[in-house]
């Protein structure tokens, strides 16, 4: 075992982690721990753009953006946070440009902007060009640009270091303070303890609880899982976004920018069905509405294909040059993975699990909360792992890239400032004990269960029972399946007993986190007897502001026998200027 000492430790090197690192490394001695090489992070898969009211191509302002974000989130959005995000969006985009990001340009040489789902002018009057983009590779460019600037600033990375535990010191009154993290070095199998004054979690989402997902194989909710096991709450976990246009059957993402450029969704009859669901902005309605509409089309028998289980994205009416120039990557995905030529053929699409609105609760300074108001000193979270909550119950397209830049930056500054004004907290005795025990249990297990089988069954049941539409019945099924799988997980064994690059062990650990999070998601969904944003209940189709205009807070309780259970609480939504209204587009 090795021990390291840093002022600030950042866990995760995607957009949020690296944006934070650029700030914190200027102010404090910072280490970035990542289980991947930084440029492998899933920020790179984001395509369409990053919204900011630059007004480069048409009139716009950040208040409209705020309104869209609040309304898009079905009024569960914390409005103070949304205001901050949309206001700081403009500088966030300009900062990236100054760092070198190669945005697509207008003829005048300014950053070009295009339409995106749910982004409107003047409170919903019409779609607005707000998304700053670089073809359909905006996330790739952001990730590369941030990494390039980390290289420029000599940010210290620990690549392929898998953080498995968070070290919290606790006083008599039960108040927690951050003292560091414990990581497993993939190359050698060695345990490293990182003592730190402040820790930022920027580990991303947990899309791998689902089978059909746009998420990378590495998105296993490690950060949320670690916090959860350390007794920190998780907020709004039932709100999971399904992106409308995943390649049918595969889940590979086709950007909403495709519809921003004029793409149209059609059912088997060739009908532009979004006209019925969102008469004003049609195909550019927010993702929850489009995804639900697509599922309804399929359920009502208007799906396309031999099994009538998908709809079409139609780009054929767009000039081929526009498609090649503005949407080169997704065009290639359709060609490579489905053998479809998007310039002349319809592309089969279906909703794919995409983004967790929920996560580790934080305030607008990115400080992690241990209940509705109490801050955990020294602990920060940003990006998909966190729930600020700027996205409410449904995130608008492009707002995730915004989130990581705005709150990544805020987390970096706040964590570094905390680190420079505080002392190290003493490490607990044998800080590595929990991790060592977890690894040894898996490595030495004589059980017969296989990681792959349990993971597949979990993903099957989550897709079938906790997808776009949920009912009491399906959720009950999902919960009992997950409980069963959790039991089987105790008997899981791995075949690779070695120390070097033991990805077998890694996958087993990841599965443990996924099972924890799947349970929280389902329990939260079961409890929320309404439909709002990314949480749609067939048996409770209306939004119920009376009873559910509040955030879900899930807590992990452990009883005397060591059995754990989930306790749910609530947190009020911050409303500043936009009172909840019926959501129509």
């Amino acid at each position, binding site marked *: 075992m090795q021990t390291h000492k840093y002022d600030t430790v950042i866990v995760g090197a995607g957009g949020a982690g690296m944006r934070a690192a650029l700030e914190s490394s200027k102010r404090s001695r910072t280490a970035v721990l990542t289980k991947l090489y930084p440029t492998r992070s899933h920020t790179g898969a984001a395509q369409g753009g990053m919204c900011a009211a630059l007004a480069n191509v048409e009139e716009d302002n950040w208040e409209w953006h705020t309104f869209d974000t609040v309304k898009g989130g079905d009024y569960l959005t914390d409005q103070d946070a949304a205001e901050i995000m949309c206001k700081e969006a403009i500088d966030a985009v300009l900062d990236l440009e100054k760092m070198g990001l190669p945005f697509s340009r207008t003829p005048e040489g300014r950053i070009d902007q295009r339409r995106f789902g749910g982004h409107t002018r003047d409170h919903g009057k019409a779609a607005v060009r707000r998304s700053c983009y670089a073809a359909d590779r905006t996330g790739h460019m952001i990730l590369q640009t941030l990494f390039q600037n980390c290289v420029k600033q000599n940010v210290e*990375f620990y690549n392929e270091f898998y953080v498995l535990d968070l070290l919290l010191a606790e006083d008599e009154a039960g108040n927690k303070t951050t003292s560091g993290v414990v990581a497993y070095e993939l190359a050698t199998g060695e345990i490293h303890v990182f003592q730190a004054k402040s820790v930022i979690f920027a580990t991303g989402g947990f899309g791998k609880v689902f089978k059909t997902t746009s998420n990378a194989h590495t998105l296993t909710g490690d950060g949320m899982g670690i916090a959860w096991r350390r007794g920190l709450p998780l907020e709004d976990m039932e709100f999971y976004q399904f992106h409308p246009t995943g390649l049918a059957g595969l889940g590979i993402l086709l950007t909403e920018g495709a519809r921003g450029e004029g793409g149209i969704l059609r059912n088997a009859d060739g009908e532009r069905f979004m006209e019925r669901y969102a008469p004003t902005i049609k195909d550019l309605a927010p993702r929850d509405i489009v995804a639900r509409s697509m599922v309804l089309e399929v359920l009502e028998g208007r799906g396309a294909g031999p099994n009538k289980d998908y709809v079409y994205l139609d780009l054929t009416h767009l000039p081929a040059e526009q498609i090649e120039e503005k949407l080169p990557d997704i065009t290639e995905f359709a060609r490579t993975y489905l053998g479809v030529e998007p310039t002349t053929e319809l592309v089969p699409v279906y909703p794919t699990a995409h983004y967790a609105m929920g996560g580790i609760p934080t305030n607008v300074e990115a400080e992690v909360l241990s209940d509705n108001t109490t801050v955990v000193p020294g602990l920060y979270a940003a990006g998909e792992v966190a729930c600020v909550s700027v996205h409410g119950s449904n995130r608008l397209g492009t707002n995730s890239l915004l989130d990581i830049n705005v709150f990544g930056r805020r987390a970096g500054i706040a964590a570094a400032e905390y680190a420079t004004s505080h002392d190290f907290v003493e490490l607990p005795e044998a800080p590595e004990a929990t991790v060592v025990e977890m690894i040894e249990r898996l490595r030495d297990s004589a059980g017969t269960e296989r990681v792959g089988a349990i993971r597949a069954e979990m993903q099957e049941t989550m897709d079938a029972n906790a997808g776009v539409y949920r009912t009491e019945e399906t959720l009950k099924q999902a919960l009992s399946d997950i409980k069963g799988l959790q039991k089987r997980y105790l008997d899981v064994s791995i075949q690779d007993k070695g120390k070097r690059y033991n990805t077998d062990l890694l996958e087993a650990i990841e599965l443990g986190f996924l099972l924890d999070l799947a349970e929280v998601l389902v329990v939260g969904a079961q409890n929320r007897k309404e439909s709002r944003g990314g949480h749609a209940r067939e048996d409770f189709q209306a939004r119920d502001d009376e009873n559910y205009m509040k955030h879900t807070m899930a807590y992990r309780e452990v009883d005397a026998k060591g059995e754990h259970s989930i306790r749910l609480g609530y947190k009020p939504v911050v409303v500043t200027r936009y009172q909840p209204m019926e959501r129509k587009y």
Partner: protein
Amino acid sequence: MSATIENAPKIHGGGPSIESPRSKRSPRSTKTNFELYGWLFMRLSGILLVVLVLGHLLIQLVLDGGVSRIGFAFVAGRWSSPFWQSWDLIMLWLAELHGVNGLRTIINDYAERDQTRFWLKALLYTSALIVLFLGTLVIFTFDPNIGS
């Protein structure tokens, strides 16, 4: 890429493998354009050589009679003209330098140990000196009457 961990020598071992490339990059060498000029020379000399060598081949092997008529007398005939003398001289120098540079590159590519590299190059340069010296000498000091 992973940061240097002061008290942690990264354990590499076990794996039989080529040495880690680029691990011991020497500090930036003094700025010269040597490789640039070398590269350019290969292209420029190449173009000239296409003309010179193909012309040479044409004369020696294809035109009237080919190799059959080549002999001392033939050489004597040709080198009596300063034109052919310079042709052959330029061809000799360009070809040899072109070849030496090519071989140097190949040695750089494939000779793995510094020792081997050094000796191979020493051999190469010596041979080049011999060839250039001898060739030039022969062209300039050719005596058509040597036999008589």
